[in-house]
């Protein structure tokens, strides 16, 4: 899984590379544009284009029918029935391309969450490091050795919470940069990257997980820990990120879907795709 994640992740790094110092909006517009292109391609080659065209024409015709024969209840009702029927047929035609698109789209969304989902830390900020440990590791008897590079300060002794099987520390971001945090537990050493960056668009991986298909799928930003590691996961609780527009805070997912749809409709004529 990590091989796939690292290659797929690299593609996004290349795509976003030129936009890292610009407002996240540019990167967002660009990726939405690419997504629209991808969706149009998928639609073009996996859907029944002729069928969609016919269905849409039929719907238009029946709409016209309703307007022309608005005095005749009979005709209107029949036309409305037909519109409903062709709408269902239209949905039927769209299912195939949607099915084809859904898996790549989920993979893309998971990647985008690394870029847009979290704010990187700023100097002076505090953040929680949360380590989830294995069921059979004693929280109180295990020594957690933790070290950090100089730009990052470990402010507290370990806080062990039996209820959730986790150990917490408070970290303080002193300087900008990508800092390394290393932890040794029962002779196993782990290194986790912590981003205190000033670029506007950063790739931030909050969670490092143990080798496991599902966990790796949803946390693709970093190489996983070996499957037998006493630590289940290591998480930096970065603050959530929002995109800001005229003072409004909007979740990036909404912006992404809205822009992709706008681009999709704007470009469908250019690529002669029926949607």
């Amino acid at each position: 899984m990590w091989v796939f994640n690292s290659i797929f992740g690299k593609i996004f790094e290349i795509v976003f590379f030129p936009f890292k110092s610009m407002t996240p909006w540019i990167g967002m517009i660009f990726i939405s544009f690419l997504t629209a292109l991808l969706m149009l391609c998928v639609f073009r080659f996996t859907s029944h284009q002729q069928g969609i065209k016919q269905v849409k024409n039929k719907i238009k015709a029946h709409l016209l029918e309703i307007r022309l024969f608005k005095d005749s209840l009979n005709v209107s009702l029949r036309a409305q029935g037909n519109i409903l029927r062709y709408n269902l047929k239209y949905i039927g035609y769209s299912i195939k391309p949607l099915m084809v698109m859904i898996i790549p789209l989920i993979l893309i969304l998971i990647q985008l969450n690394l870029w847009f989902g979290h704010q990187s830390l700023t100097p002076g900020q505090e953040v929680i490091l949360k380590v989830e440990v294995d069921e059979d590791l004693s929280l109180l008897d295990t020594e957690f050795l933790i070290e950090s590079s100089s730009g990052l300060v470990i402010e507290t002794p370990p806080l062990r919470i039996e209820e959730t099987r986790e150990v917490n520390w408070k970290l303080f971001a002193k300087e900008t940069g990508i800092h390394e945090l290393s932890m040794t537990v029962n002779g196993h050493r782990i290194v986790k990257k912590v981003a205190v960056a000033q670029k506007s668009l950063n790739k931030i991986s909050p969670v490092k997980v143990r080798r496991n298909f599902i966990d790796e799928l949803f946390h693709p930003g970093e190489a996983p820990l070996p499957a037998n590691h006493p630590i289940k996961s290591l998480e930096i609780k970065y603050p959530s990120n929002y995109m800001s527009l005229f003072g409004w805070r909007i979740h990036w997912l909404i912006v992404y879907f809205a822009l992709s749809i706008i681009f999709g409709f704007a470009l469908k004529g250019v690529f002669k795709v029926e949607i």
Partner: protein
Amino acid sequence: MNRVNRRDFIKFALSSGALLTLGSGSELVTKTLGKSDTHKKVLILGLDGMDPHLLQIWMKQGKLPSFQKLWNQGDFRRLRTSTPPQSPVAWSNFITGMNPGGHGIFDFIHRDPESYMPKFSGAEIKEADKTIRIGNLVLPLSGGEVKLSRKGRAFWQILEDHDIPATVFKMPGNYPPAPTKQRTISGMGTPDLLGFLSHFNYYTTEFAEVKEDIGGGEIHEVYIAENTVEASLPGPVNTFKKDRPDSSIDFKVHIDPFNPVAKIVIQDNEFILKPGEWSGWKRIRFKMIPTQSVNGICMFYLKQIRPEFKLYISPINIDPAAPALPISTPSNYSKELEKRFGPFFTKGLPADTKALDNNVLDDGEFLEQDDFILNERLEMFEHELSRFDSGLLFYYVSSTDQRQHMFWRHIDKKNPIYDPNQAKKYGNTIENIYREMDRMLAKAMEKTDKDTVLIAMSDHGFSPFHRSFNPNTWLYENGYHALINKWRQGREDLFMNTDWSKTKAYALGLNGLYINQKGREGEGTVNPGVEKEALVREIIQNLESFRDPQTGENPVLKAYATKDVYQGSQMDKAPDIIIGYNQGYRVSWSAPLGRIPKNILEDNREKWSGDHCMAPEVVPGILVTNQKINIDSPALFDLTPTILQIFNIKKTEGMIGKSIF
């Protein structure tokens, strides 16, 4: 669309496009009203409670170079304060150019004459009178209202009429902010989210600390089970539900079994604190009904984990980003400040003096909190100062007042709880805040050009507070006030033990004394006119001649018949007598809300050890300006016509002062 419109449209589209691409960097800035730049500018620093005596001592010692420089450039005077010298009254004199007879603010606390019940003088809350009830829910059909009680127009409203821009930052006694298009944000008088003037929460495992009734906060007893404390943070009353329950938020504190560290989890906030650490602002949301919630901000302070667990949560401030009550004009102004500075203190007097008085916070912890307040205030000052280029800027600081109230005992060897060791540690707190204000003034002076009138002023000065006076006990012992049961004396607030049918006078609030007047009070006994007039004179004479058997001094320096000292349309609501206490004396802690303790005089053993609710002659304020002052003893209400005159505006009807320049 004609050509011009289209061009405008394109411009608009381009600029909004630019804003869009700016993304997070874009911000909308609240404009002040003024359309044209003014030639003259007025910059006023309102330094609450700054005392002329201390100012002069430290100026002489060269510790306040900016104040000295400003005096050399212009002038310095003791500023006559209001009667009584309480901040809401004093600042209202300044705001309106009237005295309490005109603006109707006589004290922090007024009363309802019908029921004798005390009420806060600043604002009245009217709940929605039309509601609809669906099952357990009560939905308002018309909006409730918070109404400013002060009468008369504020000087920035008059400036607005003349198109002169003004920014008025945290003017006391202006909650809710008087309607205006000028940039204003409310200060003293603004409640916390629960509608209280101040209400902290304190969670402790130490049983001895749990008291039933402490003013200004609540102490909760908690237990540690499996290294976790589970507790609940009380929120505002849920008026959407039929039985009006208090809302609340449950939270958890996880404690390490051995290490001194804890994690607090409340809603989506999760943060780690060591003992002695503050959390910074945390935003919380009280859910009322599925579509309605109320936002607040508060700070956590983990005082101690072992041997006893102690957690303090500051009063919940109204969230400036989504204010549940009106705190600024235009309403955007508080949001704009929040965007730039993050959450900030919105509660009227932000420092938690009640927590210090109740030993929930100690001197050092209180100062840490007040430093947050002061630093935030200074940061915002630089922001406002940097964009001040026309009209008027008024900027207010509360830390001067609050630190003098709480730390006077460290510079006053005669204070009943003076402790030389503590004095060594905190004895320079007051001097330091004066020096901090000197640095602030320096910044203002840098910004001052030849067309700028710069004024540094305070609403009153300060005096020690050694002994407290129970006016109702004095009235009772002199036959003016009657009790139902003698043995109940001193046990209840709100005149619960008063026999009104035999009572001629009662004291309520910090300086007010009222005659139990027929036709005005619910159970009045004294006829208005000659009978009342004679009684007023008699009480004044007896009050002024009363001596403290312990010191031989007169606790009351001067008592004023309000009909002699007030003018204006609000006289019918005024107390009949204002008690002006002598230096070292003040009303007792429990008398303002109608308690009648057994002794007339008591030592003040509280940490709140400096005060100003005395006779105005005892506690004048300061007035330092870069212009020559042309009148001998200027008063607060003289500054209002002064401001207007600088902008060539005539003083309005009802203003009683005259320009000082």
